[in-house]
């Protein structure tokens, strides 16, 4: 049990650390640690140093997280040892980002990097056709869930009237419920809901239209849009398959071979490891595919983007009253962020935060078996 607690936070934060370090490499040349820089300065030593320090900072933050986890776990603070280090790591990452981008911001301000540089805002007048996300993985996920459901239906009449619905961290059943559709099929229903949700998200992601990086050529801009769409859709569809497979396996093991807690634990850990591999491989492949979009041809220079750093608080939060867009692509990382300069953006953000807080609270309460 302590072993699981000792491993959880470091593994979880290592995944995010690797992801952040890799995501920095996905950046277009005009953005360095979420600071807008003109092409003429994109290769400056100050930028390379800041990025290198940011990556080392991630490693140091991870070491601190691991030490805090070990101290908490060995002093018996079990639930704290899983949650607190993850929060600590998130805070440290933001601090490291803010500190390192500040050195770039200072160099940019003192060197007047944008003085006399021609800037433009750009858009795609004819948009590339939306891609159709592959249905192979979601279909496989549905097949796996259907098989598990069929097995459950077949053995349903023979199940005891009391069903184990919750297991402690070492896999022993510690909560039971009366036999019902929910207590038997609950896990599979959650799995199906996740698959449907992720499929819906990948339809949206397939239409993902990135804000144009002004210094991209038309071809580079099209490539960037296409690669970003592909990364998001493949990630979502593969993650949905892994979750369906993992949950189906856990469901079948606990029905067909009750008491094999090690097998259930193995499935859960296997699922997390495979999810990590899926995320890392998608980012690494995307990075290779984006390579041609990050090369600048000095013979046919493109104008630079407008310096919009004032609207990006800490490089992470977007606040711009004059921008009609409610959702804008993140400058750091993949996906989107809300425009907090618009009332609707603030409202949606608050709703999301409340939803996340509710989810975390319910997971903690569940883990305590209450």
């Amino acid at each position, binding site marked *: 049990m302590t072993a699981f607690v000792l491993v959880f936070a470091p593994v979880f934060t290592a995944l995010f650390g690797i992801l952040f370090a890799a995501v920095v490499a996905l950046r277009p040349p005009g953005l360095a640690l979420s600071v807008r820089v003109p092409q003429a300065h994109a290769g400056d030593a100050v930028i390379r140093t800041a990025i290198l320090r940011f990556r080392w900072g991630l490693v140091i933050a991870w070491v601190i997280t691991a030490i805090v986890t070990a101290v908490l776990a060995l002093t018996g603070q079990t639930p704290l040892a899983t949650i607190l280090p993850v929060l600590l790591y998130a805070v440290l990452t933001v601090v490291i980002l803010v500190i390192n981008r500040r050195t770039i911001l200072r160099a940019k301000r003192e060197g007047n990097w944008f003085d006399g540089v021609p800037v433009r805002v750009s*858009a795609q*007048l*004819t948009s590339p056709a939306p891609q159709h996300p592959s249905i192979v993985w979601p279909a496989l996920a549905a097949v796996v869930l259907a098989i598990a459901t069929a097995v459950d239906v077949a053995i349903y009449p023979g199940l005891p009237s009391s069903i184990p619905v919750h297991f402690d961290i070492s896999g022993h059943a510690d909560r039971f419920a009366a036999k019902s559709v929910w207590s038997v099929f609950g896990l599979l229903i959650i799995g199906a809901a996740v698959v449907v949700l992720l499929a819906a998200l990948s339809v949206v992601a397939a239409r993902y239209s990135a804000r144009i990086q002004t210094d991209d050529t038309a071809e580079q801009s099209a490539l960037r849009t296409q690669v970003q769409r592909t990364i998001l859709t493949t990630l979502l569809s593969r993650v949905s398959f892994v979750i369906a497979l993992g949950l189906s396996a856990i469901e079948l093991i606990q029905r067909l071979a009750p008491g094999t807690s090690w097998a259930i634990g193995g499935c859960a850990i296997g699922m997390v490891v495979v999810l990590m591999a899926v995320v890392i491989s998608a980012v690494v492949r995307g990075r290779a595919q984006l390579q041609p979009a990050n090369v600048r041809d000095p013979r046919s220079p493109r104008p630079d983007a407008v310096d919009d750093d004032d609207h990006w608080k800490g490089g992470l939060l977007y606040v711009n009253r004059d921008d009609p867009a409610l959702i804008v692509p993140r400058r750091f990382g993949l996906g989107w962020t809300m425009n907090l300069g618009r009332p609707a953006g603030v409202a949606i953000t608050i709703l999301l935060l409340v939803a996340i807080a509710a989810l975390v609270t319910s997971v903690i309460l569940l883990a305590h078996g209450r």
Partner: protein
Amino acid sequence: MLIDIDPDSESPLYQQLRDQVVRAIADGTLHPGESLASVRQLASQFGINSATVGKGYELLRQEGLVRTSRRSGSVVARGPADDPTPGFAADWTERLRTLLAEAVAHGLPDAAIRATTDSLLADFTAQRTDRRKSSS
């Protein structure tokens, strides 16, 4: 097709948008029937007010170069192969008169003005032919 707008320019943003669409039709980047991004899509990509983009589209509609329908959105309505709308030539001659007057007033010789117009026209034609070749 990419459109670049200069936010610091003297020329209004909607005018820059309109001018670039007209040029793209002339040099064959945009063909009749090709569909354009909606006003909202374009405004949120640029990060500028929808009314500004709408004004640019409105100019193009008045000139008959773009038409907007509820079903297919905004599409390019004309191209170099079409006959000009009645009244266009007279209108355009008036604007050209001002442009030529500027050149003459600034002392550009007639021969230089003719050479410039010839080479600009030749550019449009050459670019159109290139695009037709590479697309077929």
